[in-house]
């Protein structure tokens, strides 16, 4: 699966979480920051985690991916960071379980 396809999936999930009325007015791309641009709240990260797990089954470990991020990485995290991680998992070039 290409990054473009993963981006389309992640974008669709984010639109569902944020509500179409608001999210469709945004241009969500690889550079979009979850916190500064989307103001994604902690509770919405939980939702994102659940929805990604449902969408990709066990092929990704988003919970582990997030748990491994330090404070500064989370503040700066972009949609592209997540898309790149998912694409690597799906290619099999990235261990599904993130090493601590």
């Amino acid at each position: 699966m290409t990054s473009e396809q993963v981006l389309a999936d992640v974008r669709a999930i984010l639109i569902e979480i944020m509500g179409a009325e608001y999210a469709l007015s945004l241009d969500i791309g690889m550079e979009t920051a979850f916190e500064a641009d989307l103001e994604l709240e902690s509770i919405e990260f939980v939702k994102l985690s659940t929805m990604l797990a449902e969408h990709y089954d066990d092929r990704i470990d988003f919970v582990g991916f997030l748990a491994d991020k330090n404070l500064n990485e989370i503040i700066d995290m972009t949609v592209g960071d997540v898309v790149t991680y998912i694409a690597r998992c799906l290619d099999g070039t990235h261990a599904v379980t993130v090493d601590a």
Partner: protein
Amino acid sequence: MSRFLFVVPPFAGHILPTLAVGQQLIDRGHTIAWTGHPATLGPLLPPGAHVIPIAAEFSGQRLAEIRSRSLGLRGTAAFRFLWAEVLIPLAQSMVPAVTAVVDDFRPDVLVVDQQAPAGALVARQRGLPWATSATTSAELTDQFTTMPKVGAWARQCLFDFQRDFAVAEPVDLRFSDHLVLVFSTIALLGPSCEFPGHYAFVGPSIGERAGVPGFPWNWLDPHRAHVLVSLGTLNQEAGRRFFTTVLAAIAPLADQLQAIIVAPPHLIDSLPDHVLVREFVPQLDLLPHLHAVVCHAGHNTVCETLSHGVPLVVAPIRDDQPVIANQVTTAGAGIRVHFSRVSAGELRTALTTVLANPSYRSAARRIQTSFTAAGGAAAAADHLEKLL
């Protein structure tokens, strides 16, 4: 009789709950003092209260700068700012001053706010018993559940702060081993939360507040529901979009409700007849007349609202507010909306739902009952006396 010292940060929300507790102790014959920043403490404490001012490195001007910088921050960026640029420098600047105050006032017990860890450090250095004052319950549960390294970073900040003052065995200064006074109840925190025996859930401590004269009580129409909209004292300017959304949400509801918006009047463009805007309101006097409160989920506003069994619509902005908002929705006492994204339609649905569906009011009343049973300031004073 004994001596108690309250160590507080320069934040009103963290000072107000201590006032009634201090008064209880005074009524029981103890000697009480508050130590903190005079610019914030002065206007809040009742006349005659014993205030020991500490060097104002966090002057009114510096505090105003901190507030304005924090306005645009959300989530983990706000969290990093709070700890790295506010709480730790504040604690560092307070240690020498609080040490001098303790050596001079000679308290038997310190009551230390979670955001004034300097007090905890000094109490430990002097071998004095100390209680944690948890004026918001958000620190008791993990704020960023999916991001464990965020909470770990804050704990490390507290450890590094103690090492700078040569503390050999640093601890998490937000939680005393002697007594943690929590101004909330398990009914609101959530029954799944478990805490050690020295955590005392005393419920909100709401004391007398200075009156706000001139409120037009006759404006309230007994045939319509009354809704208060408040973003607390710090977020009013940041609330322009939110207030506009509120006005659009309630525009078609003029025959059903009246809204009182707490905001500087210049933030509200046009004012329909069923809306009142006031920069200050007598919130405690208003609450018995209210049917719902729309707010930012600040701990004090939420607890005052639930103390009257009134349901909420919560739009958390930053800091502890998302955690408190979650507590409200999990308890069934309100509906949460997104502060920056909520549309007029969503807000209208949320508001009409909490007004029409009695389950929200009954949940709010359950919390109210738990607050009454918890004992408030008197219970807090009982626990503090046991430390003697």
